[in-house]
């Protein structure tokens, strides 16, 4: 078991910079997710940890051992690939045994035919078969051992790929979007299984995904990456509740956080769409700001009251337990979304104006540079938005 440390890791392809100095400490036994849109550098980071790609500058340490010049196979890591990358010509059993054969047998023992003549090979092979079988039992894939990957379903291949990673008892598991090739229901089911597996093994997991739901549900901590930068690192709750960057705020959470245009004056008072908000900037600075409000923190009012936001209802998206109202608001580019319980908004009809208020203390304000700005405590003297 091991912790992994990245120090100022950069990666450039020619003049194109894909990683701009990543610092990351992954604790021993942690489930850490690297999440971000495609092209953000998360997969590159994982490949650099694995040793499949070399960083341009910076250091990678595994268990305090500098591994910059260590081959992938010597880093004591295992990887699960998006396509599973099972050897199609080998049976499941042979696939599971491959990492062990490579590690435990020497060159002569691996030779076809001739290898059988090397003394001691038989005992080693028996051990390897035993190890592979144990993993197969743990993953409940013993009946599949004789089959080839082409004869397996997506979920079964996924298990075999996990098994091939587990069989070596690696210090850490690296997973590159391992669930993205599964269908939706299986994906949800596998999330739970992976979490369980992580608990059982107690090993370090580094998990790459573009799916923020996977990151939120499984990780101990998540690292949100964008454009080659690590924007925020923290437990899922913290990242969701306290996004430090407007890009993080918009990426994490579904439906997206609503971003409304606002302005602050010299006193730090914020006005948004003509309303004055009940929280102001902690360090007043006049200028434009973006006000972020999650859909579940907006509450529909049965009728127009003072200091209400309003918008024209364009679409009611009914998910059964929840209902999303899509509103067109003057001065806002994207449609605002409100999460409500169906019975609460019976009266709202498409095409009509809907009034709503924001829950106090829930708004997150970002400066023009996209960074979060601190707010004062709710102030009753200021008007409620």
């Amino acid at each position, binding site marked *: 078991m091991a912790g992994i440390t990245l120090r100022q890791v950069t990666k450039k392809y020619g003049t194109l910079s894909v990683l701009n100095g990543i610092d990351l400490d992954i604790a021993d036994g942690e489930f850490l997710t690297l999440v971000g849109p495609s092209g953000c550098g998360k997969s590159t980071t994982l*490949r650099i940890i*694995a*040793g*499949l790609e070399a960083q341009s500058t910076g250091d990678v340490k595994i268990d305090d051992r500098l591994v910059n010049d260590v*081959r*992938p*196979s010597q880093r004591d*890591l*295992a*990887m699960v*690939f*998006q*396509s599973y*990358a*099972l*050897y*199609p*010509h*080998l049976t499941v059993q042979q696939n599971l045994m*491959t*990492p062990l054969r*490579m*590690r435990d047998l020497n060159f002569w023992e691996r030779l076809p035919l001739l290898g059988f003549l090397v003394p001691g090979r038989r005992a080693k092979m028996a051990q390897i078969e035993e190890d592979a079988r144990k993993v197969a039992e743990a993953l409940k894939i013993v009946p599949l051992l004789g089959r*080839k*990957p*082409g*004869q397996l379903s997506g979920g079964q291949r996924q298990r075999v790929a996990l098994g*091939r990673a587990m069989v070596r008892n690696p210090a850490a598991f690296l997973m590159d979007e391992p669930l993205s090739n599964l269908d939706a229901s299986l994906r949800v089911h596998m999330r739970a299984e992976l979490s369980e597996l992580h608990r059982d093994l107690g090993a370090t997991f580094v998990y790459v995904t573009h799916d923020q739901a996977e990151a939120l549900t499984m990780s101990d901590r998540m690292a949100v990456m964008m454009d080659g930068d690590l924007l925020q690192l923290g437990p899922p709750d913290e990242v969701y509740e306290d996004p430090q960057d407007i890009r993080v705020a918009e990426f994490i959470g579904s439906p997206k956080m609503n971003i409304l245009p606002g302005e602050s004056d010299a006193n730090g008072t914020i006005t948004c769409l003509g309303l004055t908000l009940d929280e102001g900037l902690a360090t007043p600075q006049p200028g434009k700001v973006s006000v972020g409000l999650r859909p579940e923190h907006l509450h529909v009012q049965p009728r127009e009251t003072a200091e209400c936001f309003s918008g024209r209802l364009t679409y009611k998206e009914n998910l059964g337990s929840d209902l999303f109202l899509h509103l067109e608001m003057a001065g806002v580019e994207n449609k605002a979304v409100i999460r409500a319980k169906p019975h609460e908004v019976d009266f709202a009809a498409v095409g009509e104006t809907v009034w709503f208020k924001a829950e106090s203390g829930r708004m997150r304000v970002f400066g023009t540079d996209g960074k979060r700005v601190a707010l004062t405590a709710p102030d009753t003297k200021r008007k409620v938005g």
Partner: protein
Amino acid sequence: MGRNRAHIWFVGPAVLLMIVLLILPVFVAAALSFTDYSLGNSSFDWVGTKNYDALFSRSSYAKMFSASLTYVLLVVPISVALGLGSALLISSLRIGGELYKAVFFLPVMATLLAMAIVWEFALHPIVGIVNDVLSAGCDIGWLHALLSGSWLGRDPLSSWYGDGCADSFPLWLGDKDYALGTIAFIGIWQGFGFNMVLYLAGLTSVPRELYQAAQMDGADSAWERFKLVTWPMLGPTNVFVITISSIRSFQVFDTVEALTRGGPSKSTYVMIYAMFEKGVKQNLLGIGSAITIIFLGFVLILTLIQVYFVNRKVHYG
């Protein structure tokens, strides 16, 4: 033209032509192979298996089979190995891969007959550039010593090169011991680039993640990864390339007809050339047809072998 009938117009001409131009000739050849038919004669006699008896008894036909088989056994393994080797080298290059690819593919595009004539001239025993270069090397002391093996203390005359220097270099196409090898060399020169592009296509279809998985699993050297990933994944390409090369080299004709006409002493008397000589030039259509049938038999066997391998193990699903 109604929709229900359209297919007749669409499929009809093709089916008719397939039957007349491909199926019928096979039966015509099969029938004529039991006759002594020749063009211009109004009648012919059924001669039973006489033509086949001749094919399997006369020494000139024994030479024909041996020339064809030797040619195939020379060209197929070497052009396949060179194709695979160059594809592996080219795909592992950092720069310049496209250039080599174009160069090696050039002979595939070029008119073989024209290039054969150039080779003939290059291999001309007296004015040809090949023997010119070889004999120029004789006068360079260290090169002569290296190539003749005399630097190892061997007698230079006992080596091929030393003997060539002292006496003369081969006549290539004019020497019955060298002619088939020389024709095969031209065949390899012409064909390996084709195999190369097929292998390159096969290599690009190997998922990159498999190589990375192999690296993670401990296949550290290029050779280990070749064994674990590349070679097994090239299975379908191998079957395909070998079958195609075999069928193509069985059909060798241009170089033989233009350069040796089956000689010297029938050492390059390959099947298609024999078929042409007997059937077209000498108007012995019975024996020519018998060669045709045997030739088709060979092609059928090769194809069945291919089908067997395709169905057996290289299908990964």
